[in-house]
């Protein structure tokens, strides 16, 4: 299993700490909201909206360097579009990883 990391963000920043701080601040702010939205829609069994939520979360997964997690999200999004949900557990494991990581990370 891959581990969330800031390699991509640091590579883009080229040492620009302001940029790193801004990206992390947005991630910390938006990720829980987007995840909550997904969970709500999933509970309502609105798979179309859930797939859109996963699509949006997918970018954050990739920013945090989770290559396998990203593949899980891509497969899960496609699955949801077909009204199927076998990858829900795997996807939520990735979400839990990110949740934990963002709790520990300090944007400043």
């Amino acid at each position: 299993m891959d581990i969330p990391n800031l390699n991509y963000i640091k590579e883009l920043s080229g040492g620009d700490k302001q940029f790193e701080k801004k990206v992390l601040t947005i991630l910390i702010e938006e990720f829980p909201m987007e995840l909550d939205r997904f969970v709500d829609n999933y509970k309502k069994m609105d798979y179309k909206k859930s797939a859109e939520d996963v699509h949006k979360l997918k970018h954050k997964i990739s920013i945090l360097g989770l290559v396998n997690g990203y593949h899980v999200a891509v497969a899960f999004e496609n699955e949801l579009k077909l009204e199927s949900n076998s990858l829900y557990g795997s996807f939520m494991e990735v979400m839990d990883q990110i949740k934990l990581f963002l709790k520990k990370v300090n944007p400043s």
Partner: protein
Amino acid sequence: MKCLIIDDDATARLIVRQLCEGFDSITIVEEFSNAIDAMKFLNADSSVDAIFLDIHMPSFSGFDFIQTLKSPPKIILTTSDRNFALDAFEYDCVVDYLVKPITKERFDKAIGKLKNFKMPNQQDTSKANADSESTDELYVNVDRRLVKISFSDINIIEAKGDYIKIKTNDKSHIVHSTLKKIEDKLPNETFLKVHRSYIINLSKIIDIEDNSVLIKQDIIPVSRSNRSELMKRLNLL
């Protein structure tokens, strides 16, 4: 080049903006989280040269957006979906298709394409201009005289505050102008801006070392963001 960013994801907009920082020639004039607001902006300001456009946005996709524009500017699509690539290139205005997360290397390549990309109507215009105008030289105003300079004689053009210094093999001309203005007059295939203060004639390079090029006796700095474009333009063995 005046550009817009349209993406419903704030992180994605921030990343594209950061990637653009490396290019002096790109100015992000505005960013939008939805296509509707961008359309309103474009209706009021038609001077936008290019748009970084997300495909997958709620209610109004990037493709919907392109279709609503009468004369769309150049578009670089940004998306987390690889599946739309074929659809994307059905539009004449689409320059490139970037899959998120966008790497710096891939972005630099897209900007290189953007600079050289000619819209179908621009191709017609440039051909018409080529028919009616000579493209081998330009006239510059030096001490109230219009001096003809052949492109092939130019080695380097250097920005000097409100002036530019055009260096040929045997002369230097100081002209009241900007690098941007002269860059637009020069043939793309021969000249390249390698640094915020320098445009060089690629055919005059003697050698290249790390972050500089040697032209005649001048060592010209090459900025990190322009290095990959320079390397692409060379006939490397």
